[in-house]
């Protein structure tokens, strides 16, 4: 697969999510990547307003998170977070699935949770974060089916920040089982252009990364982790 930088950028969501992020960090990062036509930028809920303002003259979607990265929050809390996200300008919300229910084989709870979150999101896109890395192949398929049944049409493969990496085989599996029914956002451990292209070839629609500059020589080195004081990653 050959993509121009612009074509690749339009398949990338850049994530600037960390515990120690400040408004200053968000501004610095967005100024430095200004001009790259990313598909989306993902920020924590408190930074939606400022990010919406900084992105207003671009096509870049504003993405935020709910019950992320651990998926341990209740449906009621997720609904409240999604309502907040809508109010403050999010275009899409990455929502952690109830992992403990999924691992317990309780796919009905997973599905009901998705349904309530999707209803609360209205016209905003809900991407369910599945943590494929902790699931068996059978569980992966059942979780994706529960997500579709619940009304979401997109999944994120792993959340990152919990030590999981996305395997190309997982993307292939979901693509084979669900075809174009499900949008696949590949995330966690995808750092290079080669890795990104391989994921896209395997059937991923979108790539998540917090270090996009590593994917093109023409993109300025903007190391998010360095900006927030965690050293280079």
């Amino acid at each position, binding site marked *: 697969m050959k993509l121009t930088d612009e074509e690749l950028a339009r398949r990338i969501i850049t994530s600037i999510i960390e515990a120690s992020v400040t408004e200053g960090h968000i501004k610095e990062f967005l100024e430095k990547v200004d001009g790259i036509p990313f598909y989306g930028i993902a920020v924590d809920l408190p930074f939606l307003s400022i990010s919406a303002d900084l992105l207003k003259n671009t096509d870049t979607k504003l993405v935020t998170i709910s019950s992320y990265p651990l998926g341990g929050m209740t449906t*009621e809390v997720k609904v409240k977070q999604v309502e907040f996200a809508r109010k403050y300008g999010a275009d899409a919300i990455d929502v952690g699935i109830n992992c403990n229910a999924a691992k317990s084989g309780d796919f009905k709870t997973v599905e009901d949770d998705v349904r309530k979150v999707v209803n609360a999101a209205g016209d905003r896109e809900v991407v369910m974060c599945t943590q494929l890395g902790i699931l068996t192949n059978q569980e992966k398929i059942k979780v994706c089916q529960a997500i579709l049944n619940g009304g979401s049409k997109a999944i994120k493969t792993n959340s990152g*920040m919990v030590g999981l990496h996305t395997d190309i085989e997982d993307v292939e599996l979901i693509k084979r089982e669900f075809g174009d029914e499900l949008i696949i956002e590949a995330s966690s451990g995808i750092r290079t252009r080669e890795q990104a292209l391989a994921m896209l070839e395997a059937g991923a629609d979108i790539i998540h990364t917090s270090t996009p500059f590593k994917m093109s020589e023409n993109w300025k080195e903007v190391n998010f982790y360095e900006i927030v004081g965690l050293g280079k990653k």
Partner: protein
Amino acid sequence: MKRREIKIEDLANMIDHTELHIDAKYGDIKRLCLEAEKYGFAAVAIYPVNVPLAASLLKDTGVKVAAAIAFHMGAYPTELKVFETKDAIEKGAEEIDFVMNIGALKAKNYDLVRNDIRAVKDAAGDLVTKVILETYLLTNEEKRRACEIAKEAGVDFVKTSTGFREKGATVEDVKLMKEVVGDRIGVKAAGGIRSVDEALSIIGAGASRIGTSSGVQIIEGFKKRA
């Protein structure tokens, strides 16, 4: 507390028996609750989604259900932390472990940090509250400042870590935190404490609550040395 003065039941009563693995099953929560009751642990520390199950299992046992709020990054608007706290209490939570607004502390927006902690504390009413600093991300000066703010806000414990970072509780951090908060507020050490030796040295440094997934191992280890 001197090592020789600690009785087994005192040690058990300092432990928050913790299950925050994302791949935990309902059966793991049941096991956690049974062990907590058997060993006389202070609390079980779990995700809000698992609070109803744990609350039903631990009714009338004396073991508290502690909910992990704003996990693990704490970067949530105050109104959503307050909502999450109230929701967890409604579902049966009896203690609240919550992550402070770390980004606001980094930005020196101390009013926001204080108001955020106070709002969660108020939402928790009379229940025990533990504010998590995530010391791994902080400078010593930031740790001190966070402890001062937590003290002003009136929480019951300052807690070192969520357990999701490269580094959890250290003896140095516990000493530093205890020095700032004094006797009225406790220090909870969490993250990476797996053996009885580690538990006792962190208690020696000033911790009065320990968050660990290895509570059973720690108590069994303590029995062996007695």
